């Protein structure tokens, strides 16, 4: 299992452009959205209209969420490449148990995604938010849980989709709304009725809430947020396991 996880880590190091893009993209989006919308969410009388904090500060956890979503889904997408290039077959005919193969793929993708998202957290200091050791620990665990959940979903999807183009289509259809409706860009409280329901049902919303709480923003009941976030990770594990374990026809 460690051999396959190590492989995932070595692969990302050998693709510096992918590494750079995965960190630089959310930073750029944060800068552009944060600067662009900052004045729009300010009222001369009431100050900030977004959860009582600067919009840039509000947006930061959402950027970490975005990083972890897209990075872990890209990790899962490598399953398609592994299948096309023959690597997956060589793994599947080895005596390594299927659960170990699924676990290593989940762990590798999730560790990479979490590490990339964590790179954004020091930016909190720039905003004067700061983040203590406990907050940082909470943020890392929440990001890891989200990464595992998304990677599990991604593996289940990548198993049945035969091309990376097709996977991109599914990813855009599912992942982008999932992020937009996670409280990353605008708070749940300000959303309209039907949208609020969708946002509350979105597991990524609760991960973003944990990140907000870690940064000292008030973003809802932490117990519920943690329960959903950990539950989402469990769902990812089950999906990854059943996909690689039962998703192929075997004896």
């Amino acid at each position: 299992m460690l051999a396959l996880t190590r492989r995932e880590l070595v692969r990302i190091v050998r693709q510096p452009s992918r590494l750079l893009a995965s960190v630089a993209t959310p930073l750029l989006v944060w800068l552009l959205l944060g600067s662009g919308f900052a004045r729009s969410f300010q009222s001369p009388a009431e100050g900030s209209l977004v959860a009582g904090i600067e919009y840039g500060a509000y947006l930061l956890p959402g950027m970490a969420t975005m990083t972890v979503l897209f990075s872990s889904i890209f990790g899962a997408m490598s399953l398609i490449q592994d299948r096309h290039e023959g690597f997956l077959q060589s793994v599947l005919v080895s005596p390594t148990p299927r659960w170990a193969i699924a676990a290593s793929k989940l762990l590798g993708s999730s560790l990479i995604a979490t590490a990339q998202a964590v790179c954004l957290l020091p930016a909190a200091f720039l905003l004067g938010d700061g983040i203590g050791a406990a907050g940082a620990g909470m943020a890392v665990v929440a990001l890891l849980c989200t990464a595992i959940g998304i990677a599990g979903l991604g593996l289940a999807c990548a198993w049945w989709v035969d091309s990376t183009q097709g996977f991109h289509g599914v990813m855009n259809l599912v992942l982008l709304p999932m992020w937009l409706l996670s409280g990353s860009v605008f708070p749940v409280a300000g959303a309209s009725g039907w949208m609020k329901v969708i946002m509350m049902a979105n597991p990524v919303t609760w991960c973003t809430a944990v990140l907000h709480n870690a940064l000292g923003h008030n973003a809802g009941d932490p117990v519920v947020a943690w329960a959903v976030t950990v539950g989402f990770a469990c769902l990812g594990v089950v999906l990854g396991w059943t996909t690689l374990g039962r998703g192929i026809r075997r004896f």
Partner: protein
Amino acid sequence: MPQAAEAAATTRDLQPAPGAPAMLSVGSLARVYKGRRGHADRRAVDGVSLEIARGEWVALLGPNGSGKSTLVRILATLDRPDEGRVLWQGRDLADASNLAAYRRGLGVVFQHAGLDRLLTVRENLAGQAALHGLTGRGAAEAVARVVDMLKIGDRLHDRVGELSGGLARRCDLARALLPRPALLILDEATAGLDHDSRIGFLDQLAALHESGQTGPMTILMTTHLMDEAERADRVVMVHEGRVVLEGSPAALRERVGGASIRCRASSIEAEAILSDAGIESTIRGSERVARVEAGADTVARVASHLARAGIAFEISPPTLGDAYLAATGATLTDLNGGND
């Protein structure tokens, strides 16, 4: 199943001793792909029965689409049959408890190298060794053994993506040999290689076959190339998912008898000469090809007429391709598409 039983194998010495189970025993195996949108189901493998003795080198010969790769996917445990069963040394692979033990002694080389192109040769081999439960000193020794065997020591630190096709194939073979497999399965393993690389790869395979740890290594390979199949102890010809003929290459050729005449031109004149001698001919590419079932006199007469007409030609003994054609009415280059 035409004449299958009659083509006697000449590898009697490779058959298991009475009572000893075969390395692999396949019984009435079938794999059916469901038809989509009103199309009929397709039986990619259709009632295949096959025994492979310990130490035997068997070639599954057939064109693309004949069902070879589907059969190999089942034997490599990547797919499961809809009907029939596979016994490995007498143990049923339908029983999940036998799978891990089977895979521990199995090496598979696929059409696409099972290596990570971003990793070095050493990293790939070490990773694959770990998948077979080899770590630390055991892994280092296993890697050193296959590196030495396949003479790839000078490229250990190169990334696989930087290697030539032939070298990448050798590294992939090294990967498959890491667990000292009792059974090595190769699925069109020379696909995409140039002639010299292909011959080199086959020579290496022949050497490995002879130098197995406990007697010759058992090899099952699929191919649509006659010269590759000629290397095997036994050739199993597959057509439309069925085994149509099997035996040693020599026995199969001998069974066909006669000779082949290949005219370098597909002219009407060549056809007329062959036709006058009562020989039917077909055009393959730029050549006119005919099978002569009659005796040496007819061959000599036709040769004389072709020479007088100034038509370049070649007379050759029957090939495995002729045997395949005689058994199935199809050539080895027929492309049927779909899952092979």
